[in-house]
């Protein structure tokens, strides 16, 4: 069994999650503070990928990144790089699809933050950077962690947009999900089943990790709460 799809899926999911971790958090932080109308409009646009069919996302991405389209043509002429049909093309698709998960959970977490903590930190002379990383983020850790894991799990399962923008080339762009589809289509039921098992066990481990993290987190605060 060629393990390339596993390796490819993991690297795509990891890179997308790391990038979206920062992008989602900063988007959530600044949008939570934006005026109401701006917030409402941005919220709809940024959440759209969550409800759109993956094929629509893939189509829109191809419209932008395709070699004959605006951005794709520009990058091709300036850097000589094709943005589609490479293994990292899937990162674009995955990022767009998982962004709303990270953004929404992080925003929910930020909105539950007790602003008086930030205010008193400011009057104690603490910098806004310190407040963000040492007070706001730890306070919202649980929500942000949940969002990150959710985004990672979704990234591993991404199929529709990825298959459109990165295609299926064994040993180059194949991921677990595209491999399962390809094997099923070519009647290689036994191998398809083995990849299904691989996928199931990864998901299982991820969810187990979530539970473990949450238990470890709740222990210190469970002691002597009153």
């Amino acid at each position, binding site marked *: 069994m060629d393990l390339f799809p596993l390796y490819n899926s993991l690297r795509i999911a990891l890179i997308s999650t790391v990038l979206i971790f920062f992008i989602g958090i900063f988007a959530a932080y600044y949008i939570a503070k934006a005026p109401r109308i701006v917030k409402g409009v941005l919220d709809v646009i940024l959440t759209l990928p969550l409800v759109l069919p993956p094929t629509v996302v893939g189509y829109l991405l191809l419209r932008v990144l395709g070699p004959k389209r605006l951005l794709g043509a520009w990058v091709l002429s300036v850097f000589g790089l094709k943005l589609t049909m490479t293994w990292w093309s899937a990162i674009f698709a995955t990022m767009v699809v998982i962004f709303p998960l990270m953004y929404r959970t992080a925003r929910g977490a930020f909105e539950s933050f007790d602003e008086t903590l930030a*205010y008193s930190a400011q009057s104690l002379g603490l910098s806004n950077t*310190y407040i963000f990383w040492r007070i706001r983020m730890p306070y919202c850790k649980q929500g942000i962690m949940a969002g990150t894991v959710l985004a990672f799990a979704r990234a591993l399962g991404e199929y529709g947009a990825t298959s459109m923008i990165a295609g299926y080339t064994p040993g180059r762009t194949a991921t677990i999900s595209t491999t399962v589809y390809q094997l099923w289509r070519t009647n290689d039921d036994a191998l398809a089943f083995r990849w299904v098992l691989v996928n199931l066990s990864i998901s299982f481990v991820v969810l187990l990790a979530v539970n473990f993290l949450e238990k470890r987190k709740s222990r210190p605060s469970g002691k002597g709460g009153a």
Partner: protein
Amino acid sequence: MSVSVDIEKKLGTFHLKAAFETGNDTLALLGASGCGKSMTLKCIAGIEKPDKGRIILDGVTLFDSEKNINLPPQERHVGLMFQNYALFPNMTVLQNIRAGAKREKDRPKRQAAIQRVISDFGLEELSSRYPHQLSGGQQQRVALARILVSDPKILLLDEPFSALDSHLRFRLEQSVRDVIRAFGRTVILVSHDRDEVYRMADRIAVMDHGQIEVCGDKKAVFDAPRTKTGAVLTGCKNISAIRRLGESRIHAVDWGMELSVQGGFENAVFAGIRMHCLRPGEGENSVLCRVVEEIENPFSYTIMLRPVGSEETVPVGWETDKATWESMRQETLPICLPEESLIPLE
């Protein structure tokens, strides 16, 4: 050491307009919730931005709308304690205090300051605990220690005792009074509790609907609250609209009584009398009253009285100790509203 505040801020229909000065003493802002007292503190701390005005602390301009000055909270050296104490939940007591000392860049000095507040506030035993493992009183101590270690020029306390059980308050008031005395600089305290304010502050400013109505020495404010809100907030429970009948005679419309008064009623629209100032018996300003209701308090009675023959008037409350009332309990009795106890109000 002094602070001078003169600010205006509009928030929807609410209009804050606060102007006061205070030196090295404790000023209390007394007002009902939503009157703008917490907003005033936030403006001084730089968390809220006034629309107009000026805030000057020890000669340093913190805010001036005309000169376009608005120092960030970090540079104001204002110690603000919130009513929930706002301890950082992810840090231990020691880490919280260290966070408060970050402004001091000199390491040995910082360490010394941290050690000093920890021993001043008796926090040695608690230093490795998290805020949620502390009682309300302990949290307050840590919050004060964390503010004082940051060496503020002024201390702002927003409802410092409202998060505590009532039986703890009295004892903690005492320790906060000690802290204020040792601090020795300007303190502004916000509260809606008149007893607390009277015990803690030197001067009182009564606030209502974003305006400071009365401001002065606490004794003067309690003796002559001047406005209806001032009277209500300083605990005067009997208040009636009045009509002036002559030089020294008024008709208290709500009570249904005609009373003679001393000076000061020239511009008055209301009259007030504290419940413990009424006296049973004949004499001047004595009105024959019927007992409408007898309310038993832990250590006293409040007797609600209405002039005999009237049904619609607002009853006047008389607070008396238990023994007195139990020895004289009657259905109708003459009650005296002494002239010197009637407070003219605008």
